[in-house]
């Protein structure tokens, strides 16, 4: 029999769910707060045990608190996810069919892109091609805003990528539905949406992983083919300076 849940566990779970996604240090503070509020045993290094108690009770419901790494800064984040292979239609919110279709198409653009970003112009151009019902550009703009607020997408200078929450929740779905396109990071072996790609052998790496890997190396070389790594020096933002384009040769139908 799994460890009993206390009100501290329930409180932690409630806040995590209402946050959508919680950064690691925030989660540690929350752990302490919950244990103190509900007067249960607290040890600062026992967050993992605390979470696995909750997870043992979430498991029969096909839910789980999962940890993921942000592609921006490499920091750990926690989110409550649906375990049954999450499809776009099961995203934890009640979006309309039309909104979900726009999300699916946006996800296609992002995943098929070279650097993991899709421009707002490209996304808004999808709006009147929706099968469910055409959407006005204005409406689509509003929907994109909601996706960002709900932490499914994140936006930088008019370019959109998948939010860490979305990646934590849908990693399995993306890996199985975009098998030939979705890249895995050569360092941490998890899904890489925003990544740098080797110009000669085509492997991808997360930016934070690139930074870590090349730290202290005289000359950046690809970990696989040992060719010189031509991408911008890690740490320097590539966004903005680089125009984004879709990967060539990839003409893939809807993931649906």
């Amino acid at each position, binding site marked *: 029999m799994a460890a009993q849940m206390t009100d501290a566990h329930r409180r932690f779970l409630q806040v995590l769910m209402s946050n959508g996604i919680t950064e690691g240090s925030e989660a540690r503070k929350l752990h302490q707060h919950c244990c103190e509020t509900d007067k249960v045993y607290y040890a600062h290094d026992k967050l993992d045990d605390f979470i696995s108690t909750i997870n043992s009770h979430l498991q029969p419901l096909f*839910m789980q608190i999962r940890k993921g790494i942000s592609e921006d800064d490499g920091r750990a984040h926690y989110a409550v996810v649906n375990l049954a292979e999450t499809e776009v239609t099961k995203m934890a919110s009640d979006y309309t069919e039309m909104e979900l279709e726009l999300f699916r198409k946006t996800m296609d653009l992002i995943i098929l892109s070279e650097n993991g970003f899709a421009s707002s112009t490209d996304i808004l151009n999808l709006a009147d091609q929706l099968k469910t019902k055409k959407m006005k550009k204005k409406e689509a703009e509003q929907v994109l805003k909601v996706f960002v607020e709900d932490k499914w997408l994140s936006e930088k200078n008019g370019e959109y990528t998948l939010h860490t929450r979305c990646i934590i929740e849908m990693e399995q779905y993306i890996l199985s539905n975009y098998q030939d396109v979705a890249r895995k990071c050569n360092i941490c072996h998890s899904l890489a949406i925003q990544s740098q790609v080797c110009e000669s052998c085509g492997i991808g790496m997360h930016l934070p992983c690139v930074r870590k890997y090349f730290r202290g190396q005289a000359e950046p070389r690809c970990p696989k083919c040992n060719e010189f790594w031509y991408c911008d020096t890690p740490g320097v933002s590539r966004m903005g300076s680089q125009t984004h384009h879709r990967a060539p040769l990839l003409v893939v139908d809807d993931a649906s």
Partner: protein
Amino acid sequence: MSQRKRSKGFGSSQMTDGEDDFIPTQTERRSQDQVNQKVSELVQFLLVKDQKKIPIKRADMLKNVIREYRDAYSEIVNKAGKTLQEVFGLQLVEIDSKRHTYILINNLPCAEGKYLCRDEEKEKMGLLLIILSFIFMKGNSVKDSALWEFLHLLRVYPGRQHQVFGDVRKLVTEEFVRQKYLEITPIPLTDPQEFKYQWGPRAEKEISKKDVLNAVAKIQGKDPTFWSSQYSEAEATR
């Protein structure tokens, strides 16, 4: 354990006893696994729907989740309620027994500090608490004109965009009402039509009158017992 105690009272009053479609032999007709599958689906459904705090209709549960398990409806809803209680600290409450609508209310003891609600929600909840306090201190019911006059003092005007609340009239008369925090009823035989504002069922379940009274007393620098009828009501509903 504390949650055992709390979950006991559950299922008796809030649940739909005496449903016309209640069939006592339901467990024999469905395997336990199938029923449990429906229970998890219903829990997820309720959690998603609850995000916007809009009451959930029984008809929607039947249509979207329970479907062909209609005969096991009571069992599935009871079990989902028990799980929500034990795992999430949320209580499934039927707030309208005629129309069969449910809400989830937070059952954990109130916490202090920053984790009460999402950041975006905080300001709105602040306004709501002020309105609820006003209603409570005025004897549990106020006219619309009195409420807006009071809000006027706080520079919150119904006709104007507020920089934090946006369309305040919409927030108060639509959003808070839909979320069942407020109840607005027309006062008969008034021309022009007047309305009275009262606490809605969600407010009654989620918000402690004692906390409200204590906060008001603190602001006014008086002892809570100064307001004797509010004080006895707060003590009684605690």
